[in-house]
């Protein structure tokens, strides 16, 4: 298993600003995943972050809006840039070990006003 620490747990931000979310894992992992979960809805994958390479973004998500860093095998950040109220959501980081499991951080609840 893996223990993931994610912060901040919540934030209220002004539109037009940016927020950086951090995710720390207690073991080295190859792939880290960033998800968005809007109220009452399932998880939507934003991007996959591999150490030493550019993140791979899913359809509808772009690097300028959601830049990701992955400086080492235990840490990643997701920035939500130039925020609007539509970005209000829960953001989650996740890791997989093998090809069958995923472990999640506790999530960042973002409200944009």
């Amino acid at each position: 298993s893996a223990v993931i620490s994610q912060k901040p747990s919540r934030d209220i931000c002004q539109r037009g600003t940016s927020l950086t979310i951090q995710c720390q894992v207690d073991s080295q992992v190859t792939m880290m995943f960033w998800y968005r979960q809007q109220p009452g809805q399932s998880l939507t994958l934003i991007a996959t972050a591999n150490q030493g390479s550019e993140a791979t973004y899913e359809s509808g998500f772009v690097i300028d809006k959601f830049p990701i860093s992955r400086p080492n095998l235990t840490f990643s950040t997701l920035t939500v840039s130039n925020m609007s109220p539509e970005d209000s959501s829960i953001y989650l980081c996740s890791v997989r070990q093998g090809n069958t499991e995923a472990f999640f951080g506790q999530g960042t609840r973002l409200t944009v006003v």
Partner: protein
Amino acid sequence: QKEVEQDPGPLSVPEGAIVSLNCTYSNSAFQYFMWYRQYSRKGPELLMYTYSSGNKEDGRFTAQVDKSSKYISLFIRDSQPSDSATYLCAMSAGDSNYQLIWGAGTKLIIKP
């Protein structure tokens, strides 16, 4: 049509009842099937995972996969109020594309 369909509920049952949660899917390439539990204001936690068809039991939880019908189930026996949460199914083909495909989640309420 979504790749994975899951009734969002809510599903409300009395304490002690047997709960059945289900997902259907359309992609016959899926081989790995997972169930997650998510409490309010928390991230999902992995409950069960199974490979291919068959049953897997862990305490009060049983996961069942029927690949011929493209249907998976999670059964909870002797349900407790602490089981009240949203349950999400997820699945993958387990090939070089590691992406999980998620259901919408079913909100479960166990009434004392």
